[in-house]
């Protein structure tokens, strides 16, 4: 089985987000053909899964080198984050401030 066939065997039909979460609980999933509600909502109506795994790298790996076939994708975690948001406190110098104002 070549790489394209392997991906084809992994790739699902369009699935509702709830079904994706049920099939791949607490995993990262790599999604294509993502359908959202109107007005750019972050919610997902349906998507096709092309990779999944315990890490985002693992989920993305099947399409990493297939940009021509999969030019657009999303990587999502199906569970609740167990790691809090770390909000960085940047220390800006003069050059940084010019970038911020550009």
């Amino acid at each position, binding site marked *: 089985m070549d790489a394209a066939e392997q991906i084809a065997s992994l790739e699902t039909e369009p699935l509702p987000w709830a079904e994706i979460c049920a099939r791949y609980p607490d995993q990262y999933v790599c999604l294509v053909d993502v359908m959202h509600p109107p*007005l750019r909502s972050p919610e997902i109506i349906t998507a096709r899964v092309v990779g999944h795994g315990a890490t985002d790298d693992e989920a*993305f790996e099947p399409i990493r080198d297939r940009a021509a076939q999969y030019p657009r994708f999303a990587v999502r*975690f199906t569970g609740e984050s167990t790691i809090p948001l770390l909000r960085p406190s940047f220390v800006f110098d003069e050059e940084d401030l010019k*970038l911020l104002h550009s």
Partner: protein
Amino acid sequence: MKKISSSFIRSRELILVEAEVIGRDGRTTEAQLIVDTGAAATTLTPKLVKRIGYSRKDGYKDAKVQTAISEERGYWLHVAQLDVLGIATPNFAVTVFPLGHQNLDGLVGMNFLRHFNFEIRPAEQLIHVELIEP
């Protein structure tokens, strides 16, 4: 004045919006970003920018981050395009730094938001952006 409306999700009382980031060779990833009016810079995670073809060597300047116990280093990067809240911004400068959280890809900071008037309507889960005439 043109107005653009976008919906958002309140995720643990954070304002979560959908974005697209275009990288090297046009590869595009969808991203979930927090709208953060308390952040000067827009930040993306290293993992997200790596998936669209960037690495630290594409950064053009270090970005210093002060933590409680030390100083860490992220970097500044120009992504090919950032699309968020219905606004496409080519060659946009972002800081790159890990944010920890598994469901978030970055923060939309004031270096993006300051170019528009915007209104956040939490009860309706809508953000209205008003383009400013040049």
